């Protein structure tokens, strides 16, 4: 009698548990879907269309643009045609601009990470009022619209800008960086610095004091504390900062459009130029896919770093 009753109870409980768990899964999925679906429609479909267009799939939603554009190739096999890619990659102008893009991305990213790391280390190890103000200063660009930032930087470094004015005051001829690749690098660093600084400071602040003190106690120099304790422990936020910065600079438009030269320029500007000024939309799409491929490579590093940290901390 008792055994019978308890058996029945067990079955009821088990059923309830399964249903409540699957209900939770369904609810979670339902709540998460709206932004995912919206992005799938308004970004995902255009991405697929753009990739298709770059391969010569000119039907459907791509038909209008394929009709208007010049130099458009049509698909010759089931997967399309690589002709547009051949056109782009044999264009010396593209190859030069690809080089400039990679150069700007690498140099700017390195400068951003070095500067933000220096600011964060100064805050973590020395602290004090000046260090705090330093870190606060580096975050200011976060709040300035990129359009304004680009334009402000252009006027600051232009032929009649502040830098040349300051040089002229002491009787020197200052450099004119406006409309040069240097200005693009300066603008990229300026706009990317806040995010990297926030990531670096948060990463370093999360290293417990005790770990630094233990290293000091063991006789470690400041240098080895930085290289052997702080940077490895803050590794993940630094990787995130690096990838986000690199991806952001890789595909940027506004900063190089305002501050850079007409030629050579970066691919973000070329994509717009080939589409609007040269009316070669398919080549523009090809360049977008190239930038996307590069960015995906960087994003892969980010995702792997995150998974590794999740695994290390036993989160998955």
């Amino acid at each position, binding site marked *: 009698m008792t055994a019978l009753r308890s058996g029945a109870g067990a079955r009821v409980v088990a059923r309830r548990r399964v249903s409540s768990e699957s209900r*939770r*899964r369904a*609810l*979670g999925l*339902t*709540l*998460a879907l*709206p*932004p*995912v679906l*919206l*992005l799938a429609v*308004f*970004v995902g*479909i*255009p*991405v697929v*269309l*753009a990739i298709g267009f770059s391969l010569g799939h000119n039907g459907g939603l*791509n038909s*209008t643009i394929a009709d208007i554009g010049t130099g458009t190739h049509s698909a010759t096999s089931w997967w399309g045609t690589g002709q547009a890619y051949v056109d782009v990659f044999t264009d010396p102008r593209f190859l030069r601009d690809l080089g400039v893009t990679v150069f700007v991305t690498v140099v700017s990213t390195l400068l951003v990470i070095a500067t933000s790391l220096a*600011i964060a280390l*100064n805050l973590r190890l020395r602290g004090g009022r*000046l260090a705090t103000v*330093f870190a*606060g*200063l580096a975050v200011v660009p976060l*709040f*300035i*619209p990129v*359009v*304004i*930032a680009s*334009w402000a*930087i252009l*006027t*600051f*470094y232009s032929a*009649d*800008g502040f830098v040349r*004015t300051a040089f*002229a*005051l002491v009787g020197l001829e200052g450099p004119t960086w406006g409309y040069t690749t240097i200005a693009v690098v300066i603008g990229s660093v*300026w706009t990317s610095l806040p*995010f990297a600084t926030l990531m670096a*400071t*948060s990463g370093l602040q999360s290293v417990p004091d005790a770990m630094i003190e233990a290293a000091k106690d063991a006789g470690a120099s400041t240098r080895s504390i930085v290289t052997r304790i702080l940077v490895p422990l803050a590794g993940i*936020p630094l990787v995130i900062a690096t990838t*986000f910065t690199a*991806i952001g600079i890789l*595909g940027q438009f506004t900063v190089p459009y305002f501050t850079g030269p007409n030629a050579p320029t970066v691919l973000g500007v070329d994509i*717009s130029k080939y*589409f609007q000024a040269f009316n070669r939309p398919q080549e*523009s*799409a090809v360049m977008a*896919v190239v*930038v*996307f491929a590069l*960015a*995906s490579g960087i994003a892969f590093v980010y995702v792997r770093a995150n998974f590794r940290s999740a695994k290390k901390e036993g989160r998955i």
Partner: protein
Amino acid sequence: MRASLFGRRATSLVLFALVAVFILGPLLWLAAHAFATSWTYPSLLPEGLTFHWWSVVFSDPQLAASVKNSLYFSPLTVLVSAIVCLPAAYAFSRFEFPGRRVFLIGLFATNAFPKMGLFVSMASLFYGLHLMNTIAGIVIVQFIGTVVFMTWIPAAAFSSVPRALEEASRDAGAGAFQTFLRVTLPLALPGILVALLMSFLASFDEAQGTYLVGAPVFMTMPTEMYSLVLNYPKQVAAVFAILLSIPSVALLLVARKYILGGRLAEGFQIR
């Protein structure tokens, strides 16, 4: 010893001055132009001071309309984004469901495709859906840039609320919804505030997409800024730049504590 200490102090002050000039210099230089009659190289100071350029901006109906448009679209976008994304953020933080991690990364991955390259096919799509030159179209195009902020940062904020605090509420007799409203939400509020702020800035700053969908019917401040730079005297653009920065700087002062406190950084580590 003393000399080296002084030397270090001096070095850090020089470094600080350099960074300060690098960051603030361009902004101050630009801002100064808003009050200058004219300014010729190599004079460090303008020839005279005036408020003339401000009246030029305020009396231009087209520029005034763009200010109004900006102040209309950005809050609207943030509101829509919050309604769509905050429940998702909560789900990402508190529910286990198939595809959770893929979705979370997918939301970010949309940023990897250069916006400029997207606009060609996006234009086709928006034409097809009759979203061109509509309010909905602009809100959608600005919403895209807010999604990562509005899901990731609040998700981290929700995750940082200890489960025991929610359990205590359930134990005290509150249901799931009441627990969310009275315990989880207030505790996650700083993170949500940062997300709202970042989304506002992203939407307020968005120019290319808005131009693509809205121009020439709906011009916002950043889209106007593009033509302004080319067609007006430098001083007018400077005035406009100051106006465009006011909301951001005001928000900076409000949320400085939370952003510097690591709420933003926390949001970008996948859990």
